[in-house]
C-alpha cells in the first residue's frame, strides 16, 4: 500500500494484462481512487482504458484476458482473483461501454437486475428504485418501455441507474459520453457529480472526451499504449500545455491553421 493508501478505496498496483496469452495490453498501470473521489482515465482509442476498468471489475476473464502481474485492492482487500459477482457484492460495479442495457427487458426490470446480488429485502430495493427515479425522472416515465426502444441518453441513464441499484461504493464508468449529444453528456456528468456528493459513490471513469472528464473529475490519469504517461489533479492537467495540445485540442496561442497541422510545435515529451 502506498502512503496515502488508508484513504484510497481502490488501488491498482502496476498491473499487466495479457489477452489470449499473447497480446500484452497493459504494461504496468498503477492508479488510485481516493474515498469519495472522481478519477478519470483519459486517452485515445486502444490506450487501455477499458481494459483497465475490466481488469478491476474482473470482466476480463470472460474475454480471455488475464491480469498477469501486479495487484488490485478494493477497500484494502485483494480482489484480482474474484468473480465479477463477488466484487459487485463488495460494492464495486462496472457500467460498460456502449450502455449494454438488457434490450428485451423493460427499463424498470433493467434497474431491478442491478439489485440481483442484494439480500436486504424487497423494501430496501423498492426504496432504492425510487431513489434512482429521483435522479433520473425520465426513467420513471419510461419505466415500462423495453430498454431496446429508448433513446441513447435514456439507455445510459438506465445503465447508471442499474449500477446504482447494487448500492455500490464505487462505480467504474466506461465511456459514458459515447454516442451522446453534448447536452446529454453534460447531464450524465452532472448526475455523476450529484451521486458522488450526495450518495458518496466513488467513480473511476474512462473517457475520451477529455474536456468534460477533466471538468468533473478531481484527478486524472492519461494512458497511452497501456502505460500511464501522466497524472495529476484535474485542474493542473487542464492547464498543462501537453494535455491542451494533444487531448484538449486547443493550441496555446493563436488559432491553428490546419494547413500546418502536421507540424507539431510540441512533441510528446514522454516519448523519448
Amino acid at each position, binding site marked *: 500500500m502506498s502512503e496515502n493508501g488508508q484513504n484510497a478505496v481502490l488501488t491498482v498496483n502496476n498491473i499487466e494484462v495479457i489477452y489470449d496469452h499473447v497480446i500484452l495490453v497493459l504494461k504496468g498501470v498503477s492508479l488510485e481512487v481516493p474515498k469519495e473521489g472522481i478519477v478519470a482515465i483519459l486517452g485515445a482509442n486502444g490506450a487501455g482504458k477499458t481494459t483497465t476498468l475490466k481488469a478491476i*471489475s474482473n*470482466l476480463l476473464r*470472460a*474475454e*480471455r484476458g488475464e491480469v498477469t502481474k501486479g495487484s488490485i485492492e478494493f477497500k484494502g482487500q485483494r480482489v484480482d482473483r474474484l*468473480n*465479477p*459477482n463477488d*466484487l*459487485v*457484492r463488495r460494492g464495486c*460495479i*462496472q*457500467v*460498460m461501454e456502449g450502455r*449494454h*442495457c*438488457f*434490450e*428485451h*427487458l423493460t427499463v424498470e*426490470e*433493467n434497474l*431491478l*437486475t*442491478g439489485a*440481483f*446480488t442484494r439480500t436486504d429485502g424487497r423494501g430496501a430495493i423498492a426504496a432504492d428504485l425510487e431513489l434512482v427515479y429521483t435522479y433520473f425522472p425520465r426513467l420513471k416515465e419510461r419505466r415500462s418501455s*423495453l430498454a*431496446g*426502444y429508448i433513446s441513447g441518453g435514456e439507455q445510459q441513464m438506465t445503465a447508471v441507474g*442499474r*449500477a446504482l441499484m*447494487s448500492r455500490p461504493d464505487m462505480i467504474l464508468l466506461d465511456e459514458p459520453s459515447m454516442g451522446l449529444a453534448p447536452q446529454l453528456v453534460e447531464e450524465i456528468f452532472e448526475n455523476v457529480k450529484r451521486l458522488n456528493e450526495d450518495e458518496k459513490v466513488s467513480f473511476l471513469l474512462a473517457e475520451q472526451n477529455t474536456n468534460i472528464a477533466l471538468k468533473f473529475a478531481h484527478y486524472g490519469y492519461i494512458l497511452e499504449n497501456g502505460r500511464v504517461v501522466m497524472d495529476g489533479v484535474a485542474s493542473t492537467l487542464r492547464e498543462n500545455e501537453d494535455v491542451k495540445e494533444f487531448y484538449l485540442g486547443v493550441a496555446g496561442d493563436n488559432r491553428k491553421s490546419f494547413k500546418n497541422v502536421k507540424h507539431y510545435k510540441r512533441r510528446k515529451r514522454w516519448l523519448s
Partner: protein
Amino acid sequence: MGGLLYNVFIDPFMQMGSAPDLLLQVLWEGFVSGTLYALIALGFVLIFKASGVFNFAQGIMVVFGALSLVGLIALGVPAILAIVMCIGIMAALAYSVEKLVLRPLVNQEPIILFMATIGLNFFLIGLGELVFGGEPKVMPTEQLGLPTGSWDFDVLGGLVIIQQLDVAAAAVACTLVAGLAIFFNKTRIGRALRAVADDHQAALSVGISLNQIWRIVWFSAGIVALATGIMWGARSDVSFALSIVALKALPVLILGGFTSIPGAIVGGLIIGFGEKIAEFYWGPLVGGSIESWFPYFLALIFLLFRPQGLFGEKIIDRV
C-alpha cells in the same frame, strides 16, 4: 388427375364436415401430443435462451428421467419418494453438466458446445443402458396415481373417447408451462435468466453469476424432461425410442422460434394438431404414418417464409 385433386383438396374436408365427432377426436389427440411437444420444446428453449446452447441431449434427458423413475419404483421405492429422488437426480445432472461440461467450455464457439451436448447425449444413452438395461419398460401408472380409464362423450351425433391419462398429461403440461412462464416473468431469478439471455456481458457486470443461472436452467430443463418422460412414458412405453419423439421439438422450435416460450407452446400445439389431422385425413392417400415426417415438412415450409419463427425474439434494430 381430377380424382387426385379431389382426394387431396376436397375429400378430407368433406369427411371433416360429415363426421364432426371424428374431427373432434382427432383434434383432442392433437392437443394432447401438442402440449407434450410444447413441454419438450420448452426444455430446449430454456437452455438455449440462457446459454445459447442447443441441447441435443434434451431428448435423452426425457428418457433418462422416465427410466430412473421406473427403475426406482421397480426397486420398491414408494412413488412419491421416487419422484423426489428423480428430481434429485435431475439436479445432480444439471450440477455436473455445468461443472464438467459448460464451465470448462466457457467462451467457446456455440458449435463446440453443441458438440458437447451430442457427447452428453451418447454418454446418457450409455449410462442409461448400463443402469436400467435397454429393453422397453412399462410406466407403473397405478403407483403414480395416474388415471387409466376413459370418458365417452356423446357429441355431435357420435362418440368421442377421451383417455383420462391424456387429460392428466395435458393438465401436467399446462401447469408446468404456466409455472415456468410465471417463474420467468415475475421472479428475481427469472428476470436474471432473461437478462442473461439478452446480454451475457452485461449480466456478468451487474453481478449475475452465469454458473448459477446455468445450473438453474439445466435443472428446470431436467424437471421439464422428467415430467414429459413420465407422461409420455405412461401413454406408450418407456424406451430409448422416446428420445426420437423428443426430437420432434425441433420442428416445434423452428415454428415457434428458438428463444420464445409462447412460441414453444403455440408451435407445439400447431405441430400436434397438424400431424394428427394430416395423419388421419391425408395419411391414407400415401399409405399412412405421415405423422413421423409431417412436422418436419411443416417446419421446412416455415423456414422458407418465416425463418425467425412465429414468435422469434423481436430483433431490436437501432438506426
